[in-house]
């Protein structure tokens, strides 16, 4: 789940973390490649850096991230991270106005955007390769040279409130936001990334500056650059631009682990939509949990690809689900699996019951041909191999998008707490059918879930 600054450009689907994380983990856990295309180091001020040569197109992609998201807010500041991210991107610095930043970005042929999530804030820029120095300097200036007056905050608030309206009009964004809130009651993850309207409306410049001073510091920062450059040259440039920043330690991590949902919750909204939407959320392992690999494969096997398993598990009710999708959000303090459906509005209650029962039964499912005795395996679908191959497919696709690659590298630099995580695809390759049953039991067996349905309002009935 993340909020993003403006539509257009190379948008990524909201809320889907699994694919984006794959290549980063793959890259970082493999060490420097034999051909020297990768380079990882830490600046003296604590900024973690990863560089990756991708020389198929004359573009450079730079992503700067901070361990600062909605998890770092309180009820009284819910929405500040999101508003700050807007202001950093569009409202200028100590030396340039927001309009000047926008004009500079445009003059250099750059695309820039940002995303706020539960855990992180990331700021991305993509530019022609000849503009690599501009890309780095621009990101450093807007992020470490941030300053803002109240009038600018007031101006950006209105844009943020428009974004609220847009999110609430979009059944998919709205349902995802509500499901995550319901899934983590009492935990910082239970606050909407978009925040509370009244907090945003009342926000002061000093609130933003205080949040920025506390969390947008070098010890809390990672930089990734991917593109058409020689890694040695880019290292020099990164050291020149980001090296002189003063060292500031990251604040201590404050959020506790997100516990399991104690009681299922269900919420129904009526909107002017054409069909019915059902979103189910289940608590899942977090980013540093060794079970994440099995959950990734499970999610792929259940709801993605040519022939996902979940419709088959719905048995007699399979025809009432018009579409099925699954997503795994591997957050630092606890993850979520979100299963979403399109269905005829009148079928939504039955679908929720059938889907939850089916997902509970996933702990007993046969995922591999080897789960079947004798000749029966020859005629069975191998959901295990399918899920693994879909992860490989996603990794291959991620190789093609420089911005996505850089964003996932930054995400890994900031979220990973393991000393030596395994190579991602190696770990995926070791997942077996019993691991999937164990993961399904962990995520779905208790049945506690958060459900949000959005159906047409009375005017459309």
């Amino acid at each position: 789940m993340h909020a993003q600054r403006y539509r257009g450009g190379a948008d990524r689907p909201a809320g889907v973390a699994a694919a984006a994380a794959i290549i980063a983990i793959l890259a970082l856990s493999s060490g420097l490649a034999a051909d020297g295309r990768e380079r990882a180091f830490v600046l003296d001020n604590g900024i973690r850096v990863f560089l990756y040569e991708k020389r198929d197109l004359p573009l450079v992609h730079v992503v700067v991230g901070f361990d600062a998201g909605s998890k770092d807010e309180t009820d009284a500041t819910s929405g500040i991270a999101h508003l700050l991210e807007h202001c950093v991107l569009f409202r200028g610095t100590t030396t340039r106005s927001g309009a000047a930043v926008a004009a500079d970005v445009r003059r250099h042929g750059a695309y820039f955007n940002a995303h706020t999530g539960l855990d992180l804030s990331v700021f991305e820029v993509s530019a022609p390769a000849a503009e690599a120095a501009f890309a780095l300097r621009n990101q450093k200036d807007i992020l470490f040279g941030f300053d803002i007056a109240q009038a600018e905050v007031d101006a950006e608030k209105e844009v943020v409130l428009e974004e609220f309206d847009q999110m609430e009009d979009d059944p998919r964004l709205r349902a995802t936001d509500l499901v995550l809130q319901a899934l983590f009651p009492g935990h910082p993850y239970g606050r909407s990334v978009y925040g509370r309207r009244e907090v945003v409306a009342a926000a002061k410049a000093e609130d933003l500056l205080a949040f920025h001073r506390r969390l947008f510091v070098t010890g809390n920062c990672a930089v990734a650059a991917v593109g058409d450059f020689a890694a040695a040259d880019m290292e020099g440039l990164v050291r020149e631009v980001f090296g002189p920043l003063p060292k500031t330690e990251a604040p201590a991590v404050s959020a506790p682990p997100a516990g399991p949902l104690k009681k299922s919750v269900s919420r129904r909204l009526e909107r002017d939509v054409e069909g019915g939407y059902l979103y189910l959320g289940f608590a899942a392992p977090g980013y540093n949990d060794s079970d994440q690999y099995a959950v990734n494969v499970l999610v792929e096997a259940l709801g993605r690809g040519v022939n996902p398993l979940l419709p088959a598990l719905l048995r007699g009710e399979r025809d009432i689900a018009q579409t099925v999708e699954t997503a795994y959000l591997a957050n630092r303090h606890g993850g979520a699996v979100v299963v979403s459906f399109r269905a005829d509005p009148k079928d939504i209650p039955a679908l929720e019951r059938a889907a939850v029962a089916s997902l509970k039964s996933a702990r007993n499912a046969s995922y591999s041909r080897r789960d079947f005795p004798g000749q029966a395996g020859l005629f069975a679908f191998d959901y295990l191999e399918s899920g693994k191959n879909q992860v490989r497919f996603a990794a291959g696709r991620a190789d093609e998008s420089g911005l996505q690659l850089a964003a996932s590298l930054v995400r890994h630099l900031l979220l990973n707490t393991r000393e030596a995580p395994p190579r991602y695809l190696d770990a995926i390759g070791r997942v077996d059918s019993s691991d999937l049953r164990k993961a399904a039991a962990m995520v779905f067996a208790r049945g506690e879930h958060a459900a949000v349905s959005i159906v047409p309002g009375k005017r459309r009935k």
Partner: protein
Amino acid sequence: MTRRPVRAAAAALAAAALAAAAGPPAWKEQPRKTVLTTGLPLIYQQDEASPMTVVGLFVPGGRAAVPEGLDGLATLATRLALELPDEDKVRDLMAQSTRLTFLCEADFSAVFIECLSENLEAALRVAGKVIPAPLMSGPRIGRAKEMMALAAESEADDAVAAGSGAAASSFFRGRGYGSSGYGSAASRKAIGRKDVLDFHRRFFTSTNVFFAVVSDLDRGTVQGFLEKHFSGFPGGGRPDVPAAAPARPADLEVRLAKEAKQTYIGRAWALPAPTPGDHARGSLAEVLIGRGPGSRLWDLRAVERLAYNVGARLSWMRGAGILEAFLETGSSKAGRAVGKLDGTLRELWDKGVSADELEAAKTMAKADFLRSAETKVERTRLFGRFEVIGLGFEHISGFFGAVDAVTAEDLNSYIRTVLDPGKALKITVGPGRTGAGQGG
């Protein structure tokens, strides 16, 4: 690790990039067109950025080729071309994680086979049997129609997509280019099995279809696979589907009622058919008006605080283009937003662009173009689209030159001729009693 002096490193980086930019535009490997032994053309580009292959099979025809009253037929026929007749084939593709997708545009439809390159031959073996001779049974047609109805609902739930559909429908009177890709409930019901079979027989022929492929594999390998597994297309004449010209609608105001917090307000113009020059001019106009921070519409967000989403959108067909400028605003602000949007567009029309603004737009347009074609699947689509609309696949390399050739005088003349605010189609999607259309 050896450290080089910092200034030298930065200079080396910039010099290397500039040297690359000064050579042939952008692509390390130039795409090439050949003809397979089966007679099917192949546009091929090798790209080792990932171990993936995307094969696009393009079928000229598209919405323009659909008979009156059968809206959705091209989509339905293309969707059914991917129907796998038995579970063994489903199982094979599933295990390999190969993806079969399709799209239907104004002038063509296409199917895409996207896979790990190691699985390419296995994927083509299955697809090569199915696509030329798909199983089009009544139940399969019925299921595909249900999926189209669902997709049409999703499209209607997206105000920007709904606004775009309304623009095409108005300029082409709801026919051909202006028809709905997914059809209406009535048109879907009217489509019979014979219609689908006839459409498939007419357009999925060896004289009409062509391939575009981007892969890390060498061309000879892929060519061999395609010749081996796609020899089953029947012959036939090349269907003549005229390129329709847009017509100015009698009523320039279109309103779609939707109970929502936000109102979509759009302005749309029909553009001249896409020659390389007009394609470049249209692309520059799109960037100038609504692509990202610093565009003309950006101030409606940053200064006027009217919207979160402001933008421009350009679509091309053989006979024309359509450029839309739009914003989504809180419904209480709709009246003021209409006035500001029209004022901004009128100022562009009245005063044109400066040389500096044009240079920035050129840089932005070229970089945006590269970003839009970075992934293999998007580049494959671009090859096919350029080929069908008459620009030719080579335009992926020629685009930079065409953009650089546009002068401020050219572009201002184009804007004066084409983007007259008084002749713009005015589209509103939102609550019925908005202030849209009242000015402000």
